């Protein structure tokens, strides 16, 4: 595989022999061959072939920072939608407040948003999230934008270069959750600029040299830069 091309593969497409290659994430092996299991981009690291999905639900991994929306306040916990196949549980012990039994709705209610961390994922995919970490809080104000979780690494860029650029030109506060939810707060024209940049990233997610093109776009449209 050449370096310059990102190859789009579809499910059941044969990627190679199981002998010289190892089957990584997003692939399965059958009769000595490696096949892709979903629509994605083929990625080779050493002899490991893996397929990075282009679309699909967020696959929660413990330690990920996500933006969740409260579905329900229960007696001693909340149900949080983190865009995964299953709702996640936020127990009162994992919240930074002293919550009395049955008094959960006073702190977080249906429709509120939180910046949370995935605490655990068990084998039956029961999810737990926590608010007990640095910089985790209930979100007040701003806007939440949803993108496909697979393009989150593109939005952040190498060592955060892309998101740093967007923040610099738009003068917005931005947080990108691993689950594809992006929280933006700032002046209206700044938010417009962020949306413009993210739309460009979304439509050209699988091409190279995106950071430079987005920076150019931001330069064109930005009014003043700090």
């Amino acid at each position: 595989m050449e370096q310059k091309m990102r190859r789009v593969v579809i499910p059941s497409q044969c990627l190679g022999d199981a002998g010289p290659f190892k089957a990584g994430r997003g692939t399965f092996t059958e009769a000595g061959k490696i096949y892709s299991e979903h629509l994605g981009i083929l990625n080779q690291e050493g002899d490991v072939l893996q397929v990075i999905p282009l679309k699909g639900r967020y696959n929660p991994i413990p330690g990920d920072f996500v933006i969740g929306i409260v579905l329900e306040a229960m007696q001693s916990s909340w149900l949080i939608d983190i865009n995964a196949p299953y709702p996640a549980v936020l127990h009162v012990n994992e919240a930074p407040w002293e919550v009395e039994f049955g008094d959960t709705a006073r702190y977080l209610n249906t429709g509120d948003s939180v910046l949370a961390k995935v605490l655990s994922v068990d084998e039956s995919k029961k999810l737990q999230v926590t608010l007990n970490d640095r910089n985790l809080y209930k979100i007040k104000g701003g806007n939440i934008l949803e993108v496909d979780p697979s393009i989150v690494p593109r939005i952040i860029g190498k060592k955060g270069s892309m998101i740093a650029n967007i923040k610099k030109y738009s003068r917005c506060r931005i947080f990108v959750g691993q689950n594809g939810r992006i929280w933006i707060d700032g002046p209206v024209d700044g938010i417009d600029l962020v949306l413009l940049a993210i739309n460009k990233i979304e439509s050209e997610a699988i091409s190279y040299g995106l950071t430079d093109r987005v920076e150019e776009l931001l330069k064109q449209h930005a009014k003043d830069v700090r």
Partner: protein
Amino acid sequence: MKPEKLIVDGRRLDGRGPNDLRKIKIEAGVLHRADGSCYLEWGGNKVFAAVYGPREAVPRHTQNPLRAIVKARYNMAAFSVEDRKRPGPDRRSVEISKVISEALERVILTEQFPRASVDVCIEVLDAEAGTRCAGLTAAAVALVDAGIPMRDIPVACAAGKIDGQVVVDLGKEEDNYGQADLPIAIAPRTGEVLLMQMDGHLTVEEFNKAFDMAVESCGKVSEIQKKAILQRYHAVDEVIE
């Protein structure tokens, strides 16, 4: 109104040969709110398929703690046939929903999503024979578009017997006045049969011939499916080059 003959000089009513398919057009990712979607035109059939999920299965008792369940819903619009069809599920559409669910369940890697359900909605806007094949083919593209992990991309096509001759992909008159109809769905990579139904009578030899012809046609449809999926990302392909 029954036509006198369904095959004249080796040509069928719409001018096709026995091995020719009707015109097929597939477009992926057409619905904004669905996780994955597909619009398919197969001759006079017009079908939308939408996929939602994987998401937590409701009601709770339908959940399987080890794997996801697949809920396909096949529905015909009231205006899809010549006489108005009474809306809502009837015996026929409940059956088709069931067989399509089971066909799709076989190719989806359901064990990755315990307790979840994958919901597939198949809406037939215009019907002209072979809607279950069209529906399943569209559903498969919609599943890929939704990023759902799959072993294979299922594909369906029918064969049948008209005027004593075995032909592939029956049209409306051929279906109504023909002698047999054999819709099948296969997993093209392995050749595994996912769905097979038969209406009418075929001898063993005719059945074998019809089966082989249908499998061969499935291969052709499969190519169109794959092209449609890649087409969606074609614009970005060009940017790279």
